[in-house]
């Protein structure tokens, strides 16, 4: 048993192999232990950071319990998003339908918590028992006078990406309904940053220093009112291409708002993002301030990065992310601190993403789509990995095999975006790679 299922071989490639045609966007094989979640998970992660909305999960309890306050998305205002609300369907509703309970739940919660809007998430069994969620939402919307938006996120109806799309659809319902008077022409929306450990706040402060008005942050530290007037912005700045490009495209078609794709991970990408925005807004004054900002920020962090780099030169990392876009930035960030990305993979990358990755990575790098623990452990050993960069699910595997770990997912409590985020990232990697504990891991004992 070499641990790789025959059918998975087309989702694994080495950068020095000749023929390259990654097969991705496939459903996971039955019986594999995928690191992927479900459609619902995709919707939930995108909408979760909207802090003044009610998030009600229509389904059985588990889907809600496992997603209660596990993410690091902070808020500068209300914290209603931290509550886990669920219709907690029981056998009776599975047989006779859950619409009545959904209606009652919504009314009770809206009366009690006075949210700015409500999102109702469909889980797998709602898709089977056939509740008309949209009708219930419409009814409550009329009665309570707030927007009540159904999110069609039945878990089995696709992948996490479809969940992003369902979330974007719900957000589009809001955009365009607010008053946009008084918004500057040098204005943007921040899309696709989720305020993990306050990252949106960091990014927003950069733009403010550049003299750019931020209309809405979607969805990190998000507010319903801001989202409603997002169509008043001049430009959409989209991070995490997978989750929010759909919304950006739609806003372009509907309101003629152009968008740029950016990443705030690493020095190069963050600087490029800010310059891009300044250029698109076409103001020399903004461009000048941006130059000053980037110079000042880089000067602030560079000496420390160089210090850290001394220790990390030549160390080898495995990178496994949700979307592929973040993987690009991580490969570059690792280079900044002298490290090599020897295994790179994502849960939901597409063909072009992997082609780009191949060009970016060093020869001999293993590229992998939708992998599983058996494969990951094999690649880690084969590539002699010093640190794994990914989500919490991969942490114990890395540790067991005597490799370090850095959480680059939504559960972390340390901001890794922007310039200060780059230092935090370097420190995180350094703390794990340089710890003396690895001497006791058996792989190092001869």
């Amino acid at each position, binding site marked *: 048993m070499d641990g790789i299922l025959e059918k998975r071989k087309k989702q694994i490639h080495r950068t020095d192999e000749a023929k390259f045609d990654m097969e991705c966007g496939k*459903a*996971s*094989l*039955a019986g594999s*232990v995928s690191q*992927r979640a479900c459609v619902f998970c995709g919707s939930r992660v995108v909408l979760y950071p909207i802090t003044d909305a009610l998030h009600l999960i229509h389904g*059985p309890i588990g889907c809600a319990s496992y997603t209660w306050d596990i993410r690091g998305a902070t808020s500068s205002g209300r914290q209603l998003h931290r509550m886990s609300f669920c219709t*907690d369907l029981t056998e009776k509703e599975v047989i006779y339908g859950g619409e009545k309970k959904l209606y009652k739940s919504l009314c009770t919660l809206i009366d009690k918590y006075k949210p700015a809007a409500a999102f109702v998430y469909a889980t797998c069994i709602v898709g089977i028992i056939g509740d008309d969620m949209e009708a219930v939402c419409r009814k409550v919307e009329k009665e309570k006078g707030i927007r009540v938006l159904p999110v069609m996120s039945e878990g089995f109806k696709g992948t996490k990406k479809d969940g992003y799309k369902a979330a974007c659809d719900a957000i589009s319902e809001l955009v365009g309904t607010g008053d946009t008077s008084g918004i500057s022409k040098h204005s943007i929306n921040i899309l696709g940053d989720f305020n993990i450990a306050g990252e949106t706040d960091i990014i927003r402060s950069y733009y403010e220093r550049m003299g750019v008005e931020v209309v809405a942050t979607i969805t990190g530290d998000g507010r319903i009112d801001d989202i409603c007037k997002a169509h008043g912005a001049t430009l959409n700045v989209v991070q995490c291409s997978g989750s929010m490009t759909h919304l950006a495209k739609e806003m372009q078609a509907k309101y003629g708002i152009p968008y740029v794709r950016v990443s705030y991970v690493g020095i190069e990408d963050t600087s490029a993002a800010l310059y891009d925005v300044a250029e698109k807004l076409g103001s020399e004054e903004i461009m000048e301030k941006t130059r000053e900002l980037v110079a000042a920020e880089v000067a602030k962090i560079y000496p420390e990065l160089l210090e850290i780099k001394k220790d990390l030169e030549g160390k080898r990392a495995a990178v496994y992310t949700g979307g592929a876009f973040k993987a690009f930035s991580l490969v570059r960030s690792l280079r900044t601190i002298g490290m090599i990305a020897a295994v790179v993979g994502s849960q939901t990358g597409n063909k072009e993403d992997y082609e780009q990755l191949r060009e970016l990575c060093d020869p001999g790098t293993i590229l992998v789509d939708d992998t599983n623990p058996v494969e990951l452990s094999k690649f880690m050993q084969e590539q002699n990995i010093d640190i794994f960069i990914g989500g919490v699910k991969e942490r114990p595997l890395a540790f067991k095999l005597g490799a370090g770990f850095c959480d680059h997912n939504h559960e972390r409590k340390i901001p890794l975006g922007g310039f200060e985020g780059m230092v935090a990232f370097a420190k995180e990697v350094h703390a794990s790679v340089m710890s003396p504990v690895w001497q006791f891991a058996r792989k190092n004992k001869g």
Partner: protein
Amino acid sequence: MTMTQEEKEKDVSRNACKLCTPFGACLAFKGVTGSMTLLHGSQGCATYIRRYMISHFREPIDIASSNFTEDTAIFGGQKNFGTAVENVIRQYSPALIGIATTCLSETIGDDIKMLVHMFKKDTEVENLPEIVHVSTPSYNGTHSDGYYSTIRAISDTLVEKTGFCTDNVNVFPGMVSPADLRYLREIISSFNDNYVFFPDYADTLDGPSWDEYRPIPEGGEKIENIRSAGDSAGTIELFSCLDDKNSAGKLLEDKFGVANYRIGMPIGIRKTDAFIDALERITGSHAPAWLSAERGRLVDSYIDAHKYIFGKKAVVFGDEDMVVGITSLLSEIGITTVAAVSGGKSGKLESEIKRNNDASCDKAMIMDNSDFEDMAEAIEKLKPDLLIGNSKGYMLARKLKIPLVRTGFPVHDRFGGARIQHVGYRGTQQLFDRIVNAIIEKRQKDGDWGYTYM
């Protein structure tokens, strides 16, 4: 005044104090050597359950899924099922595959028994592992129910009677920590070399660093041992908030005439005594001296600390069986339980608390089928001195500015959840020390003098 939450229809759950049924199944299957779990349904459930367990145990936890797609949901899971089982065998070579259903496969009505039967008939795989299946729709119970039904399903599938009678004992522990399980095994083996003890996830969920990759971590009760449970002289169930129809002890009693002793979770002196008594009765051996010494030291510490804690008011929450055990401990040491709360709905919480306790629990609000917001609203006026329960109570403890003594599962905000002890004399000792110190620490912090001795 006893306020019981009658089977009132809850409109909505707000910050649930329970998990879903397959979660319990996944935990229980972790307690058998060489076992691998397959959730029959869509992918998200398996991924969520893995992540939730990993955050507590900090161990690799692999749970496969048959990965339903839209087609599967419409046409049934038969094709996925066979492929899934074969892929699990190919990647993990398990000795046992535990199959639990999710809400989805239950709702579309997949007949797993039939699917297993068909699979065995059609597959070309040789030397098939044991296949145990358990039905775990979450709209019908909680993770506790999933845990108990899985013990029962494993027993139902594997246990045989050879006709050879022994003085062996079967012990089924509740959902406790790996450290608890390790200690329970130590106790049981001091009575008799031969015993059956499962689910025992002590090593699979709290194991050493590896020298090489292992698809399935070492540890767990051996399948051969489990098979012999029908020959034992008695079974001890260390939980009591369950229906007979979910009980493996009752099953072995009915099927093989093995007497069942339902003791409950042995937290505190009286409940541990009851456990030790049952062990003595079944095995015919006496408790070893070290165990009596542990009991002696525990009694001594109760006396040493009694004045620090007398009359303090506690709110206890979490899984029903652990709540019952902890309220029993509290009644031994002079702390008043003002509320006992669980998301469980076995219907036994109140009667079990009353059965174990004297009048000291009379005033307690006993709330089953409840969530954290129900609890927050109910205890507002009770002015408790401390909370005892899992880490999900932290937000409430923070709001009330009182300590939270972390017990049970999950403990997501502290290190070492797998090593927290609760049961037996030794576990009670640790829990007792932590409770006393939480109270002392609060007094020390809040006081304006800052005593350096207490």
